[in-house]
């Protein structure tokens, strides 16, 4: 049987292992990914099994990591580069935005850049500054990148395999506070498309759209709402670039109300785009404006405030109530 119960972290690990076994060109690189297995142990055991030549501890320089990953990709490798935490991706932002994202287009398609950038992101683990951010909109705005985030171990496994197999750069955001959540992973399944959203729970009164760490919160909110007699549909977006608007639209045409939830700040977060586009697509269907629940226009707060900062059950349901009140 190919069904295993895996934590999300372990599922990523297994996916890396299986792509590395299948394709000798797949490399893993980053700070502390070797002996340590990464600070979250996502690359645990890989260096031991694949050697230092394929699991590469890099100097402490994110621009260097992505810049050399680009060079390796140009040479025919498929690097999976780890950025240790969300807040440390910015030294590499230039290489990602001006080089990685644009090089395929610059070369009129003559070169491909199959680079995956793994970024543990989001809050909820009580960390210090720069360790809890959700910068996905800053990548999704940029053409040439694909941006995804799994919400569970099964998606984590398959989406990583698909990301590595993709010929495009993929920013793979790992919901760090879900690393330890276990779920069944069928490693023999035939996965759906990498960028398709998934209806995680069906409902009729309102659609909750979320991704990564917030899917669980939305499912809990839907369960709580059900007890109050409200039927919420939950869409796990899975991909922030591209966004599967068709699936959201179908859901909203049914429920006529949409609340988008993410940890990232609301202002110019992915929810803004979803609100704008779904409003355009479903103008005559919507009974209420698309509401958004997310982070404040504020630096991610100190850990002791993160429960207030992060959208939780109550804040989601507050917006659900507001939307239903229209």
């Amino acid at each position, binding site marked *: 049987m190919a069904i295993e119960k895996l934590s999300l972290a372990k599922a990523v690990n297994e996916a890396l292992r299986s792509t590395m076994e299948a394709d000798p060109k797949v490399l893993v690189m980053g700070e502390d990914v070797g002996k340590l297995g990464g600070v979250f142990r996502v690359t645990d055991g890989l260096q031991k099994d694949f050697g230092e030549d394929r699991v590469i501890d890099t100097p402490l320089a994110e621009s260097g990591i992505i810049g050399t990953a680009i060079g390796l990709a140009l040479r025919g490798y498929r690097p999976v580069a780890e950025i240790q935490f969300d807040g440390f991706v910015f030294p590499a932002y230039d290489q990602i935005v001006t080089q990685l994202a644009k090089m395929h287009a610059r070369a009129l398609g003559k070169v491909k850049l199959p680079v995956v950038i793994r970024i543990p992101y989001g809050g909820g683990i009580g960390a*210090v500054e720069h360790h809890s951010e959700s910068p996905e909109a800053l990548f999704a705005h940029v053409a040439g990148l694909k941006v995804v985030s799994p919400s569970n171990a099964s998606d984590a496994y398959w989406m990583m395999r698909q990301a590595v197999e993709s010929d495009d750069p993929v920013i793979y955001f790992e919901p760090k506070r879900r690393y330890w959540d276990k779920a069944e992973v069928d490693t023999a399944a035939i996965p759906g498309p990498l960028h398709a959203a998934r209806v995680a729970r069906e409902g009729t009164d309102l659609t909750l759209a979320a991704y990564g760490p917030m899917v669980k919160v939305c499912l809990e909110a839907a369960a709580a709402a059900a007890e109050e007699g409200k039927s919420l549909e939950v869409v796990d977006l899975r991909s922030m670039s591209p966004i599967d608007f068709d699936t959201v639209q179908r859901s909203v045409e049914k429920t006529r109300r949409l609340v988008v939830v993410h940890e990232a700040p609301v202002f110019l977060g992915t929810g803004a785009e979803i609100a704008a586009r779904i409003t355009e697509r479903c103008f005559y269907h919507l009974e209420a404006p698309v509401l958004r629940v997310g982070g404040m226009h504020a630096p991610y707060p100190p850990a002791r405030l993160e429960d207030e900062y992060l959208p939780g059950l109550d804040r989601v349901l507050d917006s659900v109530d507001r939307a239903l009140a229209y």
Partner: protein
Amino acid sequence: MTVESTAARKPRRSSGKRTGTRKTPAAGQPELVQLLTPEGERVEHPDYLIDLTSDELRGLYRDMVLTRRFDGEATALQRQGELGLWASLLGQEAAQIGSGRALRDDDYVFPTYREHGVAWCRGVDPTNLLGMFRGVNHGGWDPNSNNFHLYTIVIGSQTLHGVGYAMGVAKDGADSAVIAYFGDGASSQGDVAEAFTFSAVYNAPIVFFCQNNQWAISEPTEKQTRVPLYQRAQGYGFPGVRVDGNDVLACLAVTRAALERARSGQGPMLVEAFTYRMGAHTTSDDPTRYRAEDERVEWEAKDPIQRLRTYLEKEGFADASFFAELEKESDALAKRVREAVRAMPDPEPMAMFEHIYADGHALVDEERARFAAYQASFADAEGN
């Protein structure tokens, strides 16, 4: 393999006259400035003369002991769940106290996240350092009240802030100096290289103080460089020197000279304090996964506190009562810190909206108001 092609080279002397070192280096290791051996023997170095009173020596000892005690207490507090994380300086006391005590009040410090000993020298209350590790703030002290900037977590960034600050010092015509701390891992960051470049071009009065504790989390220094880090400076046009980072006297003397150099308009200098991270990277780390215990044991013999104690005792600079007194003072410090941390309140939720902008911002006002109303809705609900 990667060092092979450079192994044949002789250790190079740094070119500034005051920074050359003459001692014969240990086999395979480049020369380093040492004034107090691991065995507690005082040795001389022609370029770095230092003459301290027994009072001053005891002061350095006291600083190191109290810093270590504070650090240990913080580790304990983390274990007890009072702190979310702690980055211990265990083993790096000499590098931090030596360099910290070389500073004048008007000098300015740009630390990483591990300079608890330097903070101590600057007079920052140790409990203030704990706020960010407890998760109640991102660094609760006023940088300007002790000329000690906030801890910087994004590796290397602060070196550029230090250079900019130093450029400002020079523009002001002041004779203060700036010191920027960073680690061996940080030496790989582009920002640190840019800091070298800017400081050299503007001849900024800054000392770059690299604590090479030989590890960047799980990565040994070979993953960052194949030559000793102090040599990096030469290629940017200023001198670099390696000092025994477990020798508080040498760290003091070398940093003093480097600061003096900066003050007198001679520009930047790089000091590499060769030391060792005795503990884990942070309380979240498990070094048994990546390094051998013998390495740590080997470095225990070079302990910065023990060697000064040996010296103090041998020379009769301190007696039993001094050590007993200090023990008591340590206990008191630990107790004070423990109590202060436990009493540290969580911030009010509305604090999230404070100090995002100095001049205000309409969106923040809107979100603050909305959040307040949201919170009030619970109070109402509970009130009913």
